[in-house]
């Protein structure tokens, strides 16, 4: 009984930690985006163009550490239902990567479409995986 109580308390505290952690994640994302826009010559350099190597490394460290910490806290904070919704969203997005990329790539090689864009795929599918997660969680 004591063990169960401890587990519940741990889970609650991890959930609270995760809730507290969501704000810094959003701030880190905004910092990365603003940094990228300011680093270029014009606002569209968010999409392309060179940036300073030090900035690239700094942004990579910010991004990877945020992802690692997100995974760490989420794993402890999610219950089975949420975890299933999360994994389901990612599985669907992964399947769409497999489907869309290859399709786009083949039509590019046949000169029907422009070259596949990593950014278009990444942003649209990242958004899609989040939407599927929210759908599985709240419907």
């Amino acid at each position, binding site marked *: 009984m004591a063990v169960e109580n401890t587990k519940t308390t741990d889970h609650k505290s991890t959930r609270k930690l995760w809730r507290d952690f969501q704000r810094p994640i959003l701030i880190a994302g905004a910092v990365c985006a603003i940094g990228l826009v300011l680093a270029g010559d014009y606002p569209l350099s968010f999409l392309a163009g060179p940036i300073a190597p030090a900035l690239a490394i700094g942004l990579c460290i910010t991004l990877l550490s945020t992802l690692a910490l997100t995974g760490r806290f989420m794993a402890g904070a999610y219950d089975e239902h949420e975890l299933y919704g999360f994994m389901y969203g990612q*599985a669907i997005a992964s*399947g769409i990567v497999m489907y869309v990329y290859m399709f786009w790539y*083949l039509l590019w090689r046949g000169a029907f479409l422009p070259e*596949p864009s990593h950014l278009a795929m990444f942003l649209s599918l990242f958004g899609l995986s989040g939407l599927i997660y929210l759908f599985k969680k709240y419907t």
Partner: protein
Amino acid sequence: MVEDDAPRRAPKMSPRERKYWGTLAACAVLGGIIGFAMAFTGMLDSKDPTAMLYSNAALPRNLALVIAALWGLGLPIGCLFYHHYADEQDQHAYLWACTMGWYIFVVLTPTWWLLGRGGLTPPVDIGVIFLVSMVVNALVWLWKRYV
């Protein structure tokens, strides 16, 4: 006693298992046809054997359309049959495999993109990321399914 003396035979596959393996075999054959068609075209383009695998040269338009149609129709149909015949353990392995493949895609794409823009690596190549992600996907599926 009679059972002990009887020659051991591999257990017979259930109809569901036969359909499951049939689906995987059909997908493998379809992948083989697509791969062969692309490799063969690459081989015609160049004498270099590696060109068969890594060529991004233009494909004849009709061939590209046919292969894209094979992929565009074959993958959803294969997935439909796969999910219909796969057991719970397989579905679980599939979920994990896709999640790990997705993690690779999500981590590798922005990291490489940023480092490429910083001039520290060559420009990001989504084809390579796609391949790495699919290999990880397959390895995790095999691990979760058979280990």
